[in-house]
Protein backbone atom coordinates (compact mmCIF):
# COMPACT_ATOMS: atom_id res chain seq x y z
CA UNK A 1 0.00 0.00 0.00
CA UNK A 2 1.28 3.49 -0.82
CA UNK A 3 1.12 6.27 1.73
CA UNK A 4 -1.41 8.11 -0.40
CA UNK A 5 -3.67 5.06 -0.42
CA UNK A 6 -3.32 4.84 3.33
CA UNK A 7 -4.32 8.50 3.69
CA UNK A 8 -7.39 7.78 1.58
CA UNK A 9 -8.35 4.88 3.87
CA UNK A 10 -8.25 7.24 6.86
CA UNK A 11 -10.20 9.92 4.99
CA UNK A 12 -12.86 7.38 4.01
CA UNK A 13 -13.27 6.43 7.66
CA UNK A 14 -13.54 10.08 8.72
CA UNK A 15 -16.12 10.68 5.97
CA UNK A 16 -18.23 7.89 7.43
CA UNK A 17 -17.88 9.04 11.03
CA UNK A 18 -18.33 12.74 10.31
CA UNK A 19 -20.36 13.09 7.10
CA UNK A 20 -20.91 16.79 7.87
CA UNK A 21 -17.19 17.65 7.60
CA UNK A 22 -15.62 19.12 4.45
CA UNK A 23 -12.71 16.79 3.63
CA UNK A 24 -11.66 17.95 0.16
CA UNK A 25 -8.73 20.07 1.30
CA UNK A 26 -7.44 18.51 4.48
CA UNK A 27 -3.74 19.37 4.78
CA UNK A 28 -1.80 16.14 5.42
CA UNK A 29 0.85 17.68 7.65
CA UNK A 30 -1.55 19.71 9.86
CA UNK A 31 -3.23 18.08 12.88
CA UNK A 32 -6.68 16.73 12.01
CA UNK A 33 -8.17 18.30 15.14
CA UNK A 34 -7.04 21.75 13.99
CA UNK A 35 -8.85 21.44 10.68
CA UNK A 36 -11.86 19.35 11.55
CA UNK A 37 -14.31 19.18 14.42
CA UNK A 38 -13.21 15.84 15.81
CA UNK A 39 -13.26 15.01 19.51
CA UNK A 40 -11.89 12.08 21.49
CA UNK A 41 -15.03 10.03 20.78
CA UNK A 42 -14.39 10.47 17.05
CA UNK A 43 -10.75 9.39 17.38
CA UNK A 44 -11.84 6.29 19.26
CA UNK A 45 -14.13 5.58 16.31
CA UNK A 46 -11.27 5.94 13.82
CA UNK A 47 -9.31 3.37 15.82
CA UNK A 48 -12.26 1.00 16.01
CA UNK A 49 -13.17 1.34 12.34
CA UNK A 50 -9.54 0.50 11.46
CA UNK A 51 -9.91 -2.68 13.45
CA UNK A 52 -13.37 -3.50 12.09
CA UNK A 53 -12.75 -2.74 8.43
CA UNK A 54 -9.07 -3.61 8.04
CA UNK A 55 -8.05 -5.72 11.03
CA UNK A 56 -5.52 -3.09 12.13
CA UNK A 57 -4.91 -2.81 15.87
CA UNK A 58 -3.86 0.51 17.35
CA UNK A 59 -2.97 0.13 21.05
CA UNK A 60 -4.20 2.95 23.31
CA UNK A 61 -0.65 4.14 24.01
CA UNK A 62 -0.10 4.73 20.29
CA UNK A 63 -3.18 6.86 19.50
CA UNK A 64 -0.84 9.86 19.26
CA UNK A 65 0.36 8.56 15.90
CA UNK A 66 -3.01 9.44 14.39
CA UNK A 67 -2.64 13.17 14.90
CA UNK A 68 -2.38 14.15 11.21
CA UNK A 69 -2.94 12.41 7.86
CA UNK A 70 0.82 12.37 7.31
CA UNK A 71 1.53 10.73 10.68
CA UNK A 72 -1.33 8.28 10.09
CA UNK A 73 0.24 7.23 6.80
CA UNK A 74 3.67 6.95 8.39
CA UNK A 75 2.36 4.79 11.22
CA UNK A 76 -0.34 2.74 9.47
CA UNK A 77 1.21 1.91 6.06
CA UNK A 78 3.67 -0.66 7.52
CA UNK A 79 0.75 -2.18 9.46
CA UNK A 80 -1.28 -2.55 6.27
CA UNK A 81 1.75 -4.01 4.46
CA UNK A 82 2.25 -6.51 7.27
CA UNK A 83 -1.28 -7.82 6.76
CA UNK A 84 -0.62 -9.18 3.29
Amino acid at each position, binding site marked *: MTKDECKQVVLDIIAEIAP*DEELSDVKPEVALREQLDLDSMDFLDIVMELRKKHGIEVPEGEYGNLVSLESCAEYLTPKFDALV
Partner: protein
Amino acid sequence: MENYDVAIIGAGMSGIAAGIRLAHFGKKVCIFERHYAPGGLNSFYFKEGRKYDVGLHAMTNFVKPGVKRAPLNRILRQLRISREELNLSEQLGSRVAFPGRNLRFNNEFGLLESEVEREFRNEMDGFRKLVETIQAFDDTEFNYPYQSAREVVRRCITDVVLEDMIFCPLMYYGSSTEDDMDFGQFVVMFKSIFFEGFARPQEGIRNIIKLLLLRYKEAGGIRRMKTGVASFKIEKGRVDRLILDSGEEVQADIVLSSVGLPETYSLCSKKIVSETDIKAGRLSFAETISIFKDQPSSFNWGNDTIVFFNNRDRFAYREAREPVDLTSGVICIPNNFDYGETNLTEGIVRVTCLANYETWKMYTEEEYNSEKENWRSRIWNAAKAFMPPNSLDYSKYCIAHDMFTPKTVEHFTWKQRGAIYGAPRKTKDGTTPVSNLFICGTDQGFLGIVGSMLSGIAMANTHALR
Protein backbone atom coordinates in the same frame (compact mmCIF):
# COMPACT_ATOMS: atom_id res chain seq x y z
CA MET B 1 -26.80 -21.62 27.63
CA GLU B 2 -26.71 -18.61 25.27
CA ASN B 3 -23.64 -16.46 25.82
CA TYR B 4 -23.38 -12.79 24.81
CA ASP B 5 -20.51 -10.32 24.89
CA VAL B 6 -22.92 -7.75 26.29
CA ALA B 7 -26.48 -8.01 27.64
CA ILE B 8 -28.42 -4.74 27.78
CA ILE B 9 -31.43 -4.47 30.05
CA GLY B 10 -34.13 -2.20 28.64
CA ALA B 11 -34.93 -1.12 25.05
CA GLY B 12 -35.22 2.58 25.85
CA MET B 13 -33.20 5.37 24.26
CA SER B 14 -30.03 4.68 26.22
CA GLY B 15 -30.15 0.90 25.85
CA ILE B 16 -30.69 0.96 22.08
CA ALA B 17 -28.03 3.67 21.61
CA ALA B 18 -25.54 1.55 23.59
CA GLY B 19 -26.58 -1.49 21.55
CA ILE B 20 -25.92 0.30 18.24
CA ARG B 21 -22.38 1.16 19.30
CA LEU B 22 -21.61 -2.35 20.50
CA ALA B 23 -23.18 -4.20 17.58
CA HIS B 24 -21.55 -1.84 15.06
CA PHE B 25 -18.15 -2.78 16.43
CA GLY B 26 -18.75 -6.48 16.29
CA LYS B 27 -19.91 -7.32 19.80
CA LYS B 28 -22.50 -10.03 20.19
CA VAL B 29 -25.14 -7.99 21.96
CA CYS B 30 -28.70 -8.65 23.04
CA ILE B 31 -31.25 -6.16 24.42
CA PHE B 32 -33.79 -7.64 26.84
CA GLU B 33 -37.06 -5.71 27.16
CA ARG B 34 -39.97 -6.78 29.34
CA HIS B 35 -42.54 -4.60 27.56
CA TYR B 36 -43.82 -5.41 24.06
CA ALA B 37 -43.12 -1.82 22.98
CA PRO B 38 -39.67 -0.23 22.73
CA GLY B 39 -38.83 3.27 23.99
CA GLY B 40 -38.90 2.91 27.76
CA LEU B 41 -39.79 6.24 29.34
CA ASN B 42 -40.12 7.78 25.88
CA SER B 43 -42.55 5.59 24.05
CA PHE B 44 -45.89 5.64 22.28
CA TYR B 45 -49.14 3.76 22.35
CA PHE B 46 -52.44 3.44 20.54
CA LYS B 47 -55.80 4.20 22.06
CA GLU B 48 -59.06 4.26 20.12
CA GLY B 49 -57.17 4.40 16.85
CA ARG B 50 -55.01 7.37 17.88
CA LYS B 51 -51.27 7.38 18.46
CA TYR B 52 -50.11 9.02 21.66
CA ASP B 53 -46.55 9.87 22.71
CA VAL B 54 -45.40 9.30 26.26
CA GLY B 55 -42.48 11.18 27.68
CA LEU B 56 -41.55 13.42 24.81
CA HIS B 57 -42.83 16.99 25.10
CA ALA B 58 -40.00 18.32 23.05
CA MET B 59 -36.49 17.25 22.35
CA THR B 60 -34.07 19.52 24.21
CA ASN B 61 -30.50 20.19 23.01
CA PHE B 62 -31.59 21.50 19.60
CA VAL B 63 -28.74 23.06 17.62
CA LYS B 64 -28.36 23.74 13.92
CA PRO B 65 -26.39 21.18 11.88
CA GLY B 66 -22.65 21.71 12.09
CA VAL B 67 -22.57 23.35 15.52
CA LYS B 68 -19.36 22.09 17.02
CA ARG B 69 -19.20 20.01 20.20
CA ALA B 70 -22.99 20.10 20.62
CA PRO B 71 -24.36 16.91 22.26
CA LEU B 72 -27.01 16.45 19.55
CA ASN B 73 -24.49 16.48 16.72
CA ARG B 74 -22.08 14.31 18.70
CA ILE B 75 -24.62 11.54 19.31
CA LEU B 76 -25.80 11.54 15.70
CA ARG B 77 -22.23 10.95 14.57
CA GLN B 78 -21.72 8.19 17.07
CA LEU B 79 -24.92 6.47 15.94
CA ARG B 80 -24.31 7.14 12.22
CA ILE B 81 -27.67 8.91 11.96
CA SER B 82 -27.99 11.98 9.74
CA ARG B 83 -29.80 15.20 10.59
CA GLU B 84 -32.06 14.71 7.58
CA GLU B 85 -33.29 11.36 8.90
CA LEU B 86 -34.15 12.90 12.24
CA ASN B 87 -36.19 15.59 10.50
CA LEU B 88 -36.51 18.02 13.40
CA SER B 89 -38.82 21.03 13.48
CA GLU B 90 -37.97 23.90 15.82
CA GLN B 91 -40.25 25.30 18.50
CA LEU B 92 -42.22 28.48 17.83
CA GLY B 93 -41.45 29.80 21.30
CA SER B 94 -41.86 28.93 24.95
CA ARG B 95 -42.49 30.69 28.25
CA VAL B 96 -41.92 30.53 31.97
CA ALA B 97 -45.14 31.98 33.43
CA PHE B 98 -45.33 33.08 37.07
CA PRO B 99 -47.94 35.34 38.71
CA GLY B 100 -47.78 38.62 36.78
CA ARG B 101 -44.51 37.72 35.07
CA ASN B 102 -43.49 36.03 31.84
CA LEU B 103 -40.07 35.09 30.50
CA ARG B 104 -40.26 34.08 26.86
CA PHE B 105 -37.49 32.03 25.26
CA ASN B 106 -36.81 30.21 22.01
CA ASN B 107 -33.84 28.62 20.29
CA GLU B 108 -31.96 31.95 20.17
CA PHE B 109 -30.51 32.78 23.58
CA GLY B 110 -30.84 36.51 22.87
CA LEU B 111 -34.60 36.36 23.45
CA LEU B 112 -34.22 35.11 27.02
CA GLU B 113 -31.59 37.77 27.75
CA SER B 114 -33.86 40.55 26.54
CA GLU B 115 -36.79 39.10 28.50
CA VAL B 116 -34.75 38.99 31.72
CA GLU B 117 -33.80 42.60 31.08
CA ARG B 118 -37.45 43.56 30.54
CA GLU B 119 -38.81 41.81 33.65
CA PHE B 120 -35.80 42.08 35.99
CA ARG B 121 -33.81 45.12 34.89
CA ASN B 122 -31.76 45.27 38.11
CA GLU B 123 -30.71 41.64 37.84
CA MET B 124 -29.08 41.91 34.42
CA ASP B 125 -25.49 42.00 35.67
CA GLY B 126 -26.16 39.04 37.94
CA PHE B 127 -27.79 37.10 35.11
CA ARG B 128 -24.75 37.73 32.88
CA LYS B 129 -22.47 36.59 35.71
CA LEU B 130 -24.51 33.38 36.01
CA VAL B 131 -24.25 32.77 32.27
CA GLU B 132 -20.47 33.20 32.47
CA THR B 133 -20.29 30.76 35.40
CA ILE B 134 -22.27 28.22 33.38
CA GLN B 135 -20.06 28.66 30.33
CA ALA B 136 -16.92 28.22 32.42
CA PHE B 137 -18.11 24.93 33.95
CA ASP B 138 -16.57 21.78 32.48
CA ASP B 139 -19.50 19.37 32.13
CA THR B 140 -17.57 16.81 30.10
CA GLU B 141 -15.99 15.33 33.23
CA PHE B 142 -18.09 12.60 34.86
CA ASN B 143 -16.96 13.01 38.43
CA TYR B 144 -17.31 16.64 39.44
CA PRO B 145 -18.08 17.07 43.17
CA TYR B 146 -21.64 17.97 44.32
CA GLN B 147 -22.38 21.67 44.55
CA SER B 148 -25.80 23.15 45.38
CA ALA B 149 -27.09 24.89 42.26
CA ARG B 150 -29.27 27.16 44.42
CA GLU B 151 -26.15 28.44 46.22
CA VAL B 152 -24.28 29.11 43.00
CA VAL B 153 -27.27 30.91 41.45
CA ARG B 154 -27.79 33.02 44.61
CA ARG B 155 -24.21 34.26 44.37
CA CYS B 156 -25.26 35.89 41.08
CA ILE B 157 -28.99 36.64 41.37
CA THR B 158 -30.78 38.25 44.34
CA ASP B 159 -34.43 38.28 43.19
CA VAL B 160 -35.95 34.96 44.26
CA VAL B 161 -38.63 35.18 41.57
CA LEU B 162 -36.04 35.25 38.80
CA GLU B 163 -34.16 32.46 40.57
CA ASP B 164 -37.31 30.29 40.66
CA MET B 165 -38.20 31.15 37.07
CA ILE B 166 -34.81 29.87 35.92
CA PHE B 167 -35.05 26.71 38.01
CA CYS B 168 -38.63 25.84 37.03
CA PRO B 169 -38.02 24.48 33.48
CA LEU B 170 -34.70 22.88 34.44
CA MET B 171 -36.28 20.97 37.31
CA TYR B 172 -39.39 19.94 35.40
CA TYR B 173 -37.29 18.62 32.52
CA GLY B 174 -34.92 16.52 34.50
CA SER B 175 -34.40 16.84 38.22
CA SER B 176 -34.73 13.79 40.45
CA THR B 177 -34.08 15.84 43.60
CA GLU B 178 -36.48 18.19 45.40
CA ASP B 179 -36.09 21.99 45.29
CA ASP B 180 -32.37 21.99 44.52
CA MET B 181 -30.09 20.19 42.13
CA ASP B 182 -26.44 19.43 41.58
CA PHE B 183 -24.83 22.40 39.85
CA GLY B 184 -23.32 20.08 37.23
CA GLN B 185 -26.80 18.84 36.39
CA PHE B 186 -28.06 22.43 36.40
CA VAL B 187 -25.43 23.39 33.82
CA VAL B 188 -26.31 20.46 31.56
CA MET B 189 -30.02 21.31 31.76
CA PHE B 190 -29.52 25.09 31.35
CA LYS B 191 -27.47 24.54 28.21
CA SER B 192 -29.89 22.01 26.76
CA ILE B 193 -32.95 24.24 27.26
CA PHE B 194 -31.77 27.86 27.11
CA PHE B 195 -28.49 27.88 25.13
CA GLU B 196 -29.70 25.18 22.74
CA GLY B 197 -33.47 24.65 22.66
CA PHE B 198 -36.53 22.64 21.72
CA ALA B 199 -37.44 20.74 18.57
CA ARG B 200 -39.59 17.79 17.61
CA PRO B 201 -39.77 15.30 14.77
CA GLN B 202 -43.20 15.83 13.18
CA GLU B 203 -43.96 12.15 13.64
CA GLY B 204 -43.08 12.41 17.33
CA ILE B 205 -41.01 10.01 19.35
CA ARG B 206 -41.85 7.12 17.00
CA ASN B 207 -39.52 8.54 14.38
CA ILE B 208 -36.54 8.47 16.74
CA ILE B 209 -37.28 4.99 18.05
CA LYS B 210 -37.75 3.67 14.51
CA LEU B 211 -34.41 5.11 13.40
CA LEU B 212 -32.58 3.70 16.41
CA LEU B 213 -34.05 0.23 15.98
CA LEU B 214 -33.26 0.18 12.27
CA ARG B 215 -29.63 1.14 12.94
CA TYR B 216 -29.39 -1.50 15.67
CA LYS B 217 -30.76 -4.20 13.40
CA GLU B 218 -28.49 -3.22 10.51
CA ALA B 219 -25.51 -3.46 12.84
CA GLY B 220 -26.49 -7.01 13.75
CA GLY B 221 -27.89 -6.43 17.23
CA ILE B 222 -30.32 -8.91 18.74
CA ARG B 223 -33.48 -7.79 20.53
CA ARG B 224 -35.74 -9.89 22.71
CA MET B 225 -39.06 -8.19 23.49
CA LYS B 226 -41.52 -9.34 26.14
CA THR B 227 -38.48 -10.90 27.77
CA GLY B 228 -37.87 -9.47 31.20
CA VAL B 229 -34.81 -10.16 33.31
CA ALA B 230 -35.96 -11.46 36.69
CA SER B 231 -32.58 -11.49 38.44
CA PHE B 232 -28.81 -11.45 38.17
CA LYS B 233 -27.05 -14.42 39.71
CA ILE B 234 -24.05 -12.85 41.43
CA GLU B 235 -20.98 -14.99 42.01
CA LYS B 236 -17.49 -13.85 43.04
CA GLY B 237 -18.49 -10.19 42.73
CA ARG B 238 -19.70 -10.44 39.15
CA VAL B 239 -22.91 -11.22 37.28
CA ASP B 240 -22.49 -14.89 36.49
CA ARG B 241 -25.81 -15.36 34.69
CA LEU B 242 -29.07 -13.60 34.00
CA ILE B 243 -32.29 -15.37 34.94
CA LEU B 244 -35.13 -14.36 32.62
CA ASP B 245 -38.79 -14.10 33.65
CA SER B 246 -39.40 -17.41 31.84
CA GLY B 247 -36.76 -19.15 33.96
CA GLU B 248 -34.35 -19.37 31.02
CA GLU B 249 -30.73 -18.53 31.89
CA VAL B 250 -28.25 -16.64 29.72
CA GLN B 251 -24.67 -15.49 30.22
CA ALA B 252 -22.94 -12.25 29.31
CA ASP B 253 -19.39 -10.96 29.84
CA ILE B 254 -20.74 -7.47 30.50
CA VAL B 255 -24.19 -6.36 31.66
CA LEU B 256 -25.39 -2.83 30.90
CA SER B 257 -28.57 -1.97 32.78
CA SER B 258 -30.76 0.98 31.86
CA VAL B 259 -33.57 0.16 34.29
CA GLY B 260 -32.41 2.46 37.10
CA LEU B 261 -30.03 2.12 40.03
CA PRO B 262 -32.40 0.85 42.76
CA GLU B 263 -34.19 -1.31 40.20
CA THR B 264 -30.87 -2.82 39.07
CA TYR B 265 -29.70 -3.51 42.62
CA SER B 266 -32.97 -5.20 43.44
CA LEU B 267 -32.32 -7.64 40.56
CA CYS B 268 -29.06 -8.81 42.15
CA SER B 269 -29.28 -12.18 43.91
CA LYS B 270 -27.00 -10.94 46.69
CA LYS B 271 -27.48 -7.76 48.66
CA ILE B 272 -24.64 -5.60 47.42
CA VAL B 273 -25.50 -2.17 48.82
CA SER B 274 -27.16 -0.86 51.98
CA GLU B 275 -30.87 0.04 52.02
CA THR B 276 -30.17 3.77 52.11
CA ASP B 277 -28.24 3.50 48.86
CA ILE B 278 -31.17 2.11 46.95
CA LYS B 279 -33.79 4.76 47.61
CA ALA B 280 -36.14 5.24 44.70
CA GLY B 281 -36.94 8.77 43.55
CA ARG B 282 -39.86 10.64 45.13
CA LEU B 283 -40.80 12.82 42.19
CA SER B 284 -43.55 11.52 40.01
CA PHE B 285 -45.99 13.12 37.62
CA ALA B 286 -49.47 13.01 36.19
CA GLU B 287 -50.20 14.12 32.65
CA THR B 288 -53.41 14.86 30.78
CA ILE B 289 -53.54 14.70 27.00
CA SER B 290 -56.47 16.42 25.29
CA ILE B 291 -57.21 16.03 21.59
CA PHE B 292 -59.10 18.71 19.62
CA LYS B 293 -60.52 18.66 16.14
CA ASP B 294 -58.86 21.96 15.25
CA GLN B 295 -55.42 23.46 15.58
CA PRO B 296 -54.80 25.20 18.94
CA SER B 297 -54.18 28.40 16.95
CA SER B 298 -57.93 28.38 16.17
CA PHE B 299 -58.65 28.94 19.88
CA ASN B 300 -55.89 31.50 20.39
CA TRP B 301 -53.26 29.04 21.66
CA GLY B 302 -51.07 29.04 18.57
CA ASN B 303 -47.96 30.76 19.89
CA ASP B 304 -46.72 28.75 22.85
CA THR B 305 -44.82 25.52 22.35
CA ILE B 306 -44.11 24.85 26.03
CA VAL B 307 -45.32 26.88 29.03
CA PHE B 308 -43.81 26.22 32.47
CA PHE B 309 -46.24 27.70 34.98
CA ASN B 310 -46.29 28.36 38.71
CA ASN B 311 -49.10 30.17 40.53
CA ARG B 312 -47.49 30.68 43.97
CA ASP B 313 -45.04 33.23 45.41
CA ARG B 314 -42.35 30.58 45.52
CA PHE B 315 -41.98 27.65 43.12
CA ALA B 316 -42.03 24.30 44.96
CA TYR B 317 -40.58 21.28 43.19
CA ARG B 318 -41.20 18.47 45.63
CA GLU B 319 -43.31 15.38 46.13
CA ALA B 320 -46.98 16.35 45.83
CA ARG B 321 -49.00 16.33 49.08
CA GLU B 322 -52.27 16.06 47.19
CA PRO B 323 -52.90 13.49 44.44
CA VAL B 324 -51.87 16.19 41.96
CA ASP B 325 -50.04 19.41 42.84
CA LEU B 326 -51.85 22.14 40.89
CA THR B 327 -49.55 24.98 41.96
CA SER B 328 -47.21 24.41 39.02
CA GLY B 329 -46.92 22.40 35.84
CA VAL B 330 -45.94 22.23 32.19
CA ILE B 331 -48.20 22.81 29.19
CA CYS B 332 -47.02 21.34 25.89
CA ILE B 333 -48.67 21.97 22.53
CA PRO B 334 -47.07 19.64 19.95
CA ASN B 335 -48.77 21.56 17.10
CA ASN B 336 -46.70 24.65 17.85
CA PHE B 337 -43.48 23.63 16.15
CA ASP B 338 -42.41 24.99 12.79
CA TYR B 339 -43.50 22.08 10.56
CA GLY B 340 -43.75 24.16 7.40
CA GLU B 341 -46.75 23.46 5.19
CA THR B 342 -48.46 20.63 7.01
CA ASN B 343 -49.20 20.60 10.71
CA LEU B 344 -50.46 17.65 12.77
CA THR B 345 -53.98 16.64 11.79
CA GLU B 346 -55.50 17.26 15.23
CA GLY B 347 -54.89 19.72 18.03
CA ILE B 348 -53.07 18.30 21.04
CA VAL B 349 -52.59 19.88 24.48
CA ARG B 350 -50.66 18.07 27.17
CA VAL B 351 -50.43 19.26 30.76
CA THR B 352 -48.03 17.72 33.26
CA CYS B 353 -48.03 18.26 37.04
CA LEU B 354 -46.28 16.73 40.04
CA ALA B 355 -48.34 13.91 41.53
CA ASN B 356 -48.36 11.76 44.64
CA TYR B 357 -47.43 8.14 44.04
CA GLU B 358 -48.91 6.62 47.22
CA THR B 359 -52.39 8.08 46.74
CA TRP B 360 -52.75 6.91 43.15
CA LYS B 361 -51.33 3.53 44.07
CA MET B 362 -53.81 3.00 46.91
CA TYR B 363 -57.04 3.84 45.09
CA THR B 364 -59.41 1.01 44.23
CA GLU B 365 -60.07 0.65 40.52
CA GLU B 366 -63.33 2.55 40.83
CA GLU B 367 -61.78 5.38 42.85
CA TYR B 368 -58.85 5.51 40.48
CA ASN B 369 -61.06 6.07 37.45
CA SER B 370 -63.29 8.67 39.08
CA GLU B 371 -60.29 10.54 40.56
CA LYS B 372 -58.69 10.61 37.12
CA GLU B 373 -61.80 12.32 35.73
CA ASN B 374 -61.87 14.73 38.65
CA TRP B 375 -58.20 15.74 38.38
CA ARG B 376 -58.22 15.92 34.61
CA SER B 377 -60.53 18.93 34.64
CA ARG B 378 -58.77 20.51 37.63
CA ILE B 379 -55.40 20.21 35.86
CA TRP B 380 -56.94 21.75 32.76
CA ASN B 381 -58.25 24.75 34.73
CA ALA B 382 -54.90 25.30 36.48
CA ALA B 383 -53.16 25.39 33.11
CA LYS B 384 -55.81 27.55 31.40
CA ALA B 385 -55.13 30.41 33.81
CA PHE B 386 -51.73 30.92 32.17
CA MET B 387 -52.89 30.71 28.56
CA PRO B 388 -54.37 33.39 26.30
CA PRO B 389 -58.12 33.77 27.02
CA ASN B 390 -60.64 32.07 24.75
CA SER B 391 -64.29 31.09 24.84
CA LEU B 392 -63.55 27.41 24.37
CA ASP B 393 -66.02 25.03 25.99
CA TYR B 394 -63.51 22.34 26.86
CA SER B 395 -65.99 19.55 27.50
CA LYS B 396 -67.67 20.05 24.10
CA TYR B 397 -64.57 20.77 22.11
CA CYS B 398 -62.26 18.02 23.36
CA ILE B 399 -62.85 14.96 21.16
CA ALA B 400 -60.58 12.50 22.98
CA HIS B 401 -58.37 12.45 26.02
CA ASP B 402 -56.13 10.31 28.12
CA MET B 403 -54.31 10.68 31.39
CA PHE B 404 -51.40 8.94 33.03
CA THR B 405 -50.56 8.87 36.72
CA PRO B 406 -47.51 7.63 38.69
CA LYS B 407 -49.24 4.24 38.78
CA THR B 408 -49.42 4.10 34.98
CA VAL B 409 -45.72 4.95 34.71
CA GLU B 410 -44.73 2.28 37.20
CA HIS B 411 -46.94 -0.29 35.52
CA PHE B 412 -45.50 0.18 32.03
CA THR B 413 -41.88 1.09 32.78
CA TRP B 414 -41.19 -0.80 36.04
CA LYS B 415 -39.66 2.43 37.29
CA GLN B 416 -40.08 2.30 41.08
CA ARG B 417 -42.71 4.76 42.37
CA GLY B 418 -43.17 5.97 38.79
CA ALA B 419 -40.22 8.30 39.32
CA ILE B 420 -39.43 9.15 35.71
CA TYR B 421 -36.20 11.00 36.52
CA GLY B 422 -34.99 8.11 38.61
CA ALA B 423 -33.25 7.92 41.93
CA PRO B 424 -31.81 11.03 43.60
CA ARG B 425 -28.45 9.30 43.67
CA LYS B 426 -26.69 8.86 40.33
CA THR B 427 -23.62 6.85 39.36
CA LYS B 428 -22.01 9.27 36.96
CA ASP B 429 -19.26 6.90 35.79
CA GLY B 430 -21.76 4.04 35.46
CA THR B 431 -19.91 1.66 37.76
CA THR B 432 -21.48 -0.53 40.48
CA PRO B 433 -19.95 -2.75 43.20
CA VAL B 434 -20.45 -5.66 40.77
CA SER B 435 -17.39 -5.77 38.51
CA ASN B 436 -19.10 -6.49 35.16
CA LEU B 437 -22.38 -4.63 35.81
CA PHE B 438 -22.76 -1.04 34.59
CA ILE B 439 -25.56 1.51 34.60
CA CYS B 440 -26.70 3.64 31.68
CA GLY B 441 -29.71 5.91 31.20
CA THR B 442 -31.60 7.96 33.77
CA ASP B 443 -29.60 6.92 36.84
CA GLN B 444 -26.24 7.40 35.17
CA GLY B 445 -27.32 11.02 35.20
CA PHE B 446 -27.83 12.29 31.64
CA LEU B 447 -31.49 13.13 31.05
CA GLY B 448 -33.80 13.88 28.18
CA ILE B 449 -33.82 12.16 24.81
CA VAL B 450 -30.41 13.38 23.74
CA GLY B 451 -28.98 12.88 27.24
CA SER B 452 -30.18 9.31 27.47
CA MET B 453 -28.70 8.41 24.09
CA LEU B 454 -25.45 10.11 25.09
CA SER B 455 -25.47 8.07 28.30
CA GLY B 456 -25.83 4.78 26.43
CA ILE B 457 -23.08 5.75 23.99
CA ALA B 458 -20.67 6.96 26.69
CA MET B 459 -21.15 3.90 28.89
CA ALA B 460 -20.81 1.49 25.95
CA ASN B 461 -17.63 3.27 24.81
CA THR B 462 -16.12 3.42 28.28
CA HIS B 463 -16.98 0.03 29.71
CA ALA B 464 -17.46 -2.31 26.77
CA LEU B 465 -15.47 -1.03 23.78
CA ARG B 466 -12.16 0.19 25.20
